[in-house]
C-alpha cells in the first residue's frame, strides 16, 4: 500500500492557503474581463477595473486579495489504497492552515466558541469534508470562504409541489435579499435534493467548480444558464451600485430526494473565489 507522510500534507496545505489568498484563479479573473465588456453601468465598470487592479497587486506583492482570508474549507478525496503515516489527516491539515496563516500574514478570523467568541489566534480549526474514493492519491481542494458572503446563504425545505418554478423563485429571492452584502458580482452555489445537511454541502461543493463550467446533466445545465440570466436582470450590479453584472455564474448540484422532500440550499460566494487544488 502506498504511504504518504503527514509532513508532506502539512507543507502542501501551508503553501495552498497562501497561494489561494494571493493568487486569484484565472477563471475568476477572466470572468471580470468578460463582465467589463458587457457592463453598462459606469460605476460598475469602475468597480470591475478596481478588482482587476487589486488582483494584480495581490499576485505581484503576495498579499491577500481580501482582508477576509476566510474560513479554510477543504474538500478532500482520500484514495482508499493510500496509507497516511506520521499522524492524523485532520491534524495535518490544521497544522498546515496554522503555519500558512501565520507565515503568510493572513488574518485569523476564527473564534473558538460561537457564543463566547474568543479568537483562536491561528485560523484553526479548518472545515474538512472527506470523501473516500478509489485509488491511492490524496486530492485536496481548498477555498478561503469569507464570512460576508457565507452569511448571505439560505436553506429551505421546500415541498415537492413547489416544483422547479418554486425553486427558481427561492433562489432569486435569496440573491435579492443578499443584495449588495456578499460583494457582488457573486457566484451562486445551489444544492437541490438529499437531506437538510446534504443540500447545504452540495451548495458549498458547487462553489468549488470553475466559473463557466456547466453541470453534466443537461436539464440542470439549462437551469444554471436560465438562473444566471435572471439573476443578472435584478440590476444589483458590481458591489450593489446598480448594473448588469450581479453574478459571474450559477452552479447547481443535485442529489436524489425523499418522496416528501425538496431541500434547496443557496450558498453565495463573493467575487473573490479563492481556490487551490493539490494532488499528492
Amino acid at each position, binding site marked *: 500500500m502506498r504511504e504518504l507522510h503527514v509532513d508532506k500534507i502539512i507543507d502542501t496545505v501551508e503553501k495552498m492557503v497562501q497561494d489561494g489568498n494571493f493568487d486569484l484563479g484565472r477563471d475568476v479573473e477572466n470572468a471580470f474581463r468578460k463582465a467589463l465588456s458587457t457592463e*453598462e*453601468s459606469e*460605476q460598475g465598470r469602475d*468597480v470591475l477595473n*478596481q*478588482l482587476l*487592479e*487589486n488582483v494584480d*497587486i*495581490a499576485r505581484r*506583492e503576495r*498579499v*491577500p*486579495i*481580501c*482582508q*477576509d*482570508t476566510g474560513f479554510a474549507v477543504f474538500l478532500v478525496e482520500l484514495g482508499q489504497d493510500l496509507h497516511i503515516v506520521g499522524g492524523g489527516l485532520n491534524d495535518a491539515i490544521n497544522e498546515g492552515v496554522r503555519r500558512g496563516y501565520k507565515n503568510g*500574514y*493572513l*488574518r*485569523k*478570523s476564527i473564534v473558538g466558541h460561537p457564543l463566547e*467568541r474568543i*479568537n483562536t*489566534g491561528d485560523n484553526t480549526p479548518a472545515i474538512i469534508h472527506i470523501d473516500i474514493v478509489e485509488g491511492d492519491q490524496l486530492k485536496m481542494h481548498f477555498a478561503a470562504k469569507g*464570512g*460576508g458572503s457565507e*452569511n448571505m446563504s439560505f436553506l429551505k425545505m421546500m415541498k415537492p409541489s413547489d416544483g422547479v418554478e418554486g425553486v427558481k423563485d427561492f433562489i432569486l429571492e435569496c440573491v435579492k435579499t443578499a*443584495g*449588495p*452584502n*456578499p*460583494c457582488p458580482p457573486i457566484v451562486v452555489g445551489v444544492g437541490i435534493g438529499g437531506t437538510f445537511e446534504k443540500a447545504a454541502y452540495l451548495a458549498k461543493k458547487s462553489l468549488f467548480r470553475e466559473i463557466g463550467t456547466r453541470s453534466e446533466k443537461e436539464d440542470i445545465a439549462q437551469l444554471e444558464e436560465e438562473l444566471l440570466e435572471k439573476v443578472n*436582470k*435584478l*440590476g*444589483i*450590479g458590481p*458591489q*450593489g*451600485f*446598480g*448594473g*448588469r453584472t450581479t453574478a459571474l455564474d450559477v452552479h447547481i448540484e443535485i442529489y436524489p430526494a425523499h418522496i416528501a422532500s425538496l431541500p434547496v440550499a443557496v450558498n453565495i460566494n*463573493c*467575487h*473573490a473565489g479563492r481556490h487551490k487544488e493539490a494532488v499528492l
Partner: protein
Amino acid sequence: MATVKVTTPISPEEIAKLKAGDQVFITGVIYTARDAAHKRLVELVEQGKELPFDIKDQFIYFVGPTPAKPGKVIGSAGPTTSYRMDKYSPTLLDLGLRGMIGKGSRNQEVKNSMVKNKAIYMAAVGGAAALIARSIKEAEVIAYEDLGPEAIRRLQVEDFPVIVVNDTHGNDLYEQGAAKYEIVD
C-alpha cells in the same frame, strides 16, 4: 454624481453637501471598528464612560485588516459587511459620529439616525483590499489590542476612495442603482 475630496474631521454642514452616488476621496484620520469593538464601545456609552477616541465629526471604517508584512504599514484592508453594526451605529451617531465606511445595506433605523444626526454611510469596494491599503499611510492600534484583527486602529489615510451610499437627505444608492438597472420580464 460628483467627485469630491474631503478632510476629516468634517462638519455636519460639509457632510450635507455629499450626495448618494458621489465618489469621495478621504484624507485625514479615520478609526477602525467592527463587530467586537462596536459591542465594547456601546457598552462604554451605556455605562456612561468615555470612548477611547473623540468620535465627534469623525468617520469609522468597518474593517479587520490582515497583519502587516515586515516593513509595511498595514496588510490588506477592505470593508466588512455593515449590517452587523446596525444594532450599535445609532448610539454612536447620536454622539456625533459623522460617517461610516463599509459595504452592504443598512437598516431603516440607521438610515433614519443618519438623517436626524446629519451623517452619511459610504461604501469602499469590498474585496479590493490590497488596492485600498495603498491609501493608508499610518496605522496604530489605540484600543482593544486583545481583539487582534478587531482592535480599534487610528488610520492616517490619503485619498481613500469611497462612494456615498446613504446621504443626509435619505437617498440610498443601492436602491436607486438596482432600480435603474432592473429588467422586469
